[in-house]
């Protein structure tokens, strides 16, 4: 049994007009201690909603189904009250907009010490000392605990957010596009930091991003999401080199690599509206290898014919059930391999 098991997670949003938007449609994956799992997909595919749903951080007009089992027990069973104790103690989160993820009118140190005081320590001094250590851990001088978020640079603010996430030694860190808002140099430092922390502290990491090279660089396994569900999941090498789902393949083709020797191909059309029912495979309108069944039947995520090289490789595509698979594209350019 792995550290975190997400089973058939569904999220609906009731819109003001009364219509319902099915943002997450039966997502499931497992996460072991120290493992780094990437969740990839275009914006609006439900990846952020998924990790927010795991911590119950949804707005009032949302409704959730499915299970998030932590050491066997489903923390979403009783709604907000059962999930709250697990927040920051078991699952912690780092948000994308580092600029205002920190409270502008409180010092950084105080914001880091706050969860420690809440869940762990009783004395403020101990919490403050721990906050200083955490800042040092993420490469920020402990002295700057007394300064305010607007006095930090983008990178420092994200480091502080990470330090805050580690305040109560969580089992898993859910990172929502942690580096998207940062420039490339700072991005690399943050990613190294995440990898180092994951290895040293055995911290499980779920990295939500639309940036494939980043996933390739630091994740061991990844799942590709489209229109609210995982369409393909595999170990990082299989995903890049033994791509089975047409969307994944097209996604790689749409990502310019460092040396630019490949012709960048954009995927025509747009993801389907999540507030309307979908018949058949959601990717069908944009897929380049449509077969008869795609029209009628919605493909389910099934274990593909594994090539026996380790972690399971699952895909939700009718072509795959038929034994053959779309011609895998040539291996990614040099930048793609870890």
């Amino acid at each position, binding site marked *: 049994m792995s550290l975190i098991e997400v089973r058939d997670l569904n999220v609906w949003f009731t819109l003001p007009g009364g219509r319902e938007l099915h943002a997450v449609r039966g997502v499931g994956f497992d996460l072991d201690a120290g493992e780094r799992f990437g969740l990839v997909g275009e914006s609006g595919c439900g990846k952020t909603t998924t990790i927010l749903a795991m911590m119950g951080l949804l707005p009032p007009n949302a409704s959730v189904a499915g299970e998030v089992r932590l050491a066997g027990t489903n923390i979403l069973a009783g709604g907000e009250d059962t999930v709250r104790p697990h*927040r920051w103690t078991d699952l912690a989160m780092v*948000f994308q907009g580092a600029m205002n993820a920190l409270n502008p*009118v409180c010092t950084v140190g105080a914001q880091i010490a706050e969860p420690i005081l809440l*869940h762990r320590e009783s004395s403020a001094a101990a919490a403050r000392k721990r906050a200083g250590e955490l800042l040092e851990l993420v490469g920020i001088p402990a002295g700057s605990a007394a300064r305010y978020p607007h006095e930090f640079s983008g990178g420092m603010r994200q480091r502080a957010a990470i330090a805050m996430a580690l305040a109560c030694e969580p089992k898993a860190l859910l990172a929502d596009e942690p580096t998207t808002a940062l420039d490339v140099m700072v991005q690399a430092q943050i990613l190294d930091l995440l990898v180092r922390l994951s290895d040293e502290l055995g911290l499980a990491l779920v990295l939500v991003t639309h940036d494939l090279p980043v996933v390739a660089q630091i994740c061991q396994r990844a799942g590709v999401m489209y229109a609210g569900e995982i369409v393909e999941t595999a170990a990082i090498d299989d995903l890049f080199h033994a791509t089975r789902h047409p969307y994944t393949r097209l996604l790689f083709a749409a990502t310019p690599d460092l040396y630019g020797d490949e012709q960048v191909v954009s995927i025509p059309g747009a993801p389907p509206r999540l507030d309307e029912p979908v018949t058949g495979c959601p990717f069908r309108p944009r897929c380049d290898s449509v077969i008869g069944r795609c029209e009628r039947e919605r493909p389910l995520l099934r274990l593909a014919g594994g090539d026996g090289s380790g972690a399971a490789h699952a895909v939700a595509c009718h072509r795959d059930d038929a034994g053959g698979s779309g011609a895998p594209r040539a291996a990614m350019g040099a930048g793609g391999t870890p």
Partner: protein
Amino acid sequence: MRGGDYVIRRVGFALLTIFVAITINFFLFRVLPGTVVTDLARVPHATPQLRHALTVQFGLDKPKWEQYLIYLRELARGNMGISFATQQPVSQLLLNDLKNTIPMVTIGTLGAIVVGIATGILSAWRRGSVSDHLSTNLAIAFYAFPTQFLGLMLLILLGGLLPTSGMENPYAGVFGTQSTVARLQDIGLHLILPALTLLLTLYGEFTLIMRSSMLETLGEDYVLTARAKGLTDRRVIARHAVRNALLPIATLVALSIGWIVGGAILVEYIFSWPGIGQALWQAINQRDYPMLQGGFLILAISVVVVNLLADLAYFKLDPRISG
């Protein structure tokens, strides 16, 4: 100190505004047709000598500019002249009146702020619920009530239960012993209706502003972070949302001080509260320039001071302002 020049600049602006207030005040009252001497008209056998004596005594015979310079010189010495009507030094009278107005206005305003902020937070947190609609519409209704109408209604409805005029029942102290505690209680009782009227006409604005400011703050990412940290709703609101939502309230209080004073005048008029509003009202009737100028000056200074305090409070509350 952080933003030292910010404070100096704000104080500078405040002083400039007060000076403008003094000048405009002075000439504003000289525009009134008729002077206090004409007001003495129809005093039986007020001999022409008396009228002349009064004109000279109040310096009404000198050209306006000279009067203005005299007025500035006297003001620098803290002497606001003597009231034409009662011949007593204006500063003493006005400070006395201010002493009566301040408790009533402070309690009414603070009450309004507290009630306004509390209902604002509650209805923001319970957005869309019945209690939200109820408290918002009630706030708008009370805010829309003309102060004098509200005062009259309270006078009619609570007239029997609570004292409806004056600041205290003076008899107890004179015709029998009355401990200071009993006297304070008595004043407290007399305070309820005027302060309540002021509270009800003012709190609505604070509720609405606080509600929209809270709604905006609750949409900020750091609220999500706070919730993610496992804080209960109450703690998230108290620790993170309210502090940020309070910023616009500080400026609103400053802006509405002029409105509060207007309300105080009406409330004092209805409940015979012997405050500065009442004094201003009588001064206008008796064409009592020194009292009018003094009263306006005190009101202008108090408004400017409150504005300054609000600026400084805002500056202190929000570290982002470098000043």
